[in-house]
């Protein structure tokens, strides 16, 4: 694998992550607990869709096969998507959504802070822009974790259940493969073990503050690096891609 191929894979994965997660967050439209939160959640969805466009169009450029961002989004099947399993899980209840946002934003904060220093200028530029959104998402979800964790016994219980369900998907966020080594040695990406250490510290400290226990499990789910997903992704893509696939001749 060349460095160019490795970079394509890496950027594509970032694009898939944003696209699939943005899709999930957009499902909250008209369903939030209050109107203000409806706007906040669709705003987050919008940020991720915007990010998906930036990464996918860059991936298309790196690939050089004259595919567009939409070709990559709408014309690949479920075994060709490389987002982490965590982001494709259904939205669940509000506690699940906020817990996932918090775990993810904490991870993204360190990831994109690193990538903002990447030797690949374009990747660094996108990361720089993304980091501002991530700060807002992180603060928003942290504030909700405080409210839910310290609010009522019902909200505390729901939040605990959400963390219990999500925890086995967290490890996968930090997985790396041989192509990441290639990019790391070129100064394009950074050490995931270090990111995992600071992430763990941050997440533990916030969850401790609100009396949420982290499940004791050494087992974790994996597969996305090979394009092996949960059953949920196929349905998500069927919905997302339906028009483009049903009318292959049409331009929209």
């Amino acid at each position, binding site marked *: 694998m060349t460095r160019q191929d490795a970079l394509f894979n890496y950027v594509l994965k970032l694009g898939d992550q944003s*696209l699939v997660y943005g*899709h999930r967050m*957009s*499902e909250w*439209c*008209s*369903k*939030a*607990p*209050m*109107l*203000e*939160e*409806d*706007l906040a959640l*669709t*705003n987050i*969805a*919008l940020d991720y*869709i*915007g990010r*998906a*466009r930036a990464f*996918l169009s860059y991936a298309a450029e790196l690939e050089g096969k004259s595919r567009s*961002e*939409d070709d990559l*989004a*709408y014309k690949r099947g479920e075994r060709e998507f490389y987002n982490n399993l965590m982001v494709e899980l259904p939205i669940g*209840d*509000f506690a699940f959504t906020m817990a996932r946002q918090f775990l993810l934003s904490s991870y993204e904060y360190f990831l994109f802070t690193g990538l903002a220093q990447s030797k690949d200028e374009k990747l660094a530029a996108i990361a720089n822009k993304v980091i501002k959104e991530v700060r807002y998402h992180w603060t928003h979800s942290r504030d909700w974790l*405080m*409210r*839910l964790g*310290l*609010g*009522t016994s*019902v*909200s505390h219980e*729901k939040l605990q259940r959400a963390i219990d369900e999500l925890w086995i998907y967290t490890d996968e966020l930090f997985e790396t493969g041989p192509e990441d080594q290639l990019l790391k040695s070129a100064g394009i990406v950074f050490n995931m073990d270090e990111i995992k250490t600071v992430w763990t510290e941050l997440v533990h400290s916030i969850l401790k503050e609100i009396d949420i226990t982290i499940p004791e499990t050494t087992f974790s789910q994996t597969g996305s690096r090979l394009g092996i997903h949960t059953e949920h992704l196929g349905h998500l893509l069927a*919905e*997302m891609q*339906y*028009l*483009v696939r049903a*009318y292959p*001749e*049409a*331009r*929209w």
Partner: protein
Amino acid sequence: MDVLIAGTSFQDKIDHDINIEPKDVMPDEYRTHLIRQISQHAHSEVIGMQPEGNWITRAPSLRAKQILLAKIQDEGGHGLYLYSAAETLGISRDEMIRQLHEGKARYSNIFNYPALTWADIGAIGWLVDGAAIVNQVSLQKTSYGPYARAMVRICKEESFHQRQGYEIMAHMMDGTADQKQMAQDAVNRWWWPALMMFGPHDSDSPHSGAAFRWKIKNKSNDELRRKFIDKTVPQAEVIGLRIPDPDLKWNEMKQSYDHGKINWEEFRQVINGNGPCNRQRMQHHVKYHEEGRWVREAAEAYKNRLKQSN
């Protein structure tokens, strides 16, 4: 000057086009009329998120998805401004939502129709937002200050809504046979309900007398409807869409279009709960309002906890 204005009676202010503000003296009927109208307007923005929201996850390009999401988000924002405007009249948002759920407050009839294909997203932006703009532009001069100011903010965003809808239609009319057929079908289904958005003919409009005297309204239903038709028909022609009204004709004398008969029986049926989506829209709103209760309670409990620890 302030002293002079403070001493002026309600109707004097109205007659001199001075806005009525929340703390001013106003007749109970004026207040009630406005609460009914503004809350209905707010609920319409919010319920309107449902038919369009139905297509976010299926938007056929990432750009289209972004535009649609941003558009729906605007509508939610309009709902917020309008709830706040109504709150200045002494009613809470909780109370307005309760009235909506109990069927005492209404929302625009148009959202009781289904968004069936992607072309409906175009038709809604072009025709439904297009009709709403005509109405809202005239409301920028309404006599109640907070309502008028909310309208000014809203109108700035609405023209983008209308344009994005028209762009979708234009794109589809420039596309494959399937796309053209889809676009025409959407216009066939949305045209008449869009005309009904302006309400009954002036000759059978029950509330309009006082609304005119108080300058809440300054143009009649039929005037606004005519404005909408006159601006929309040429737009349809440009992209090759047919308006589904065989009696539609340019009237040289009036310099305006004459239109065919509106099916007011359908209008009455939909208003009385028998539209294709009335139950679905209400059930959706109630369901998610109920499901969100524990979240609102947690937020409230947390706020109290912070207060106590201070």
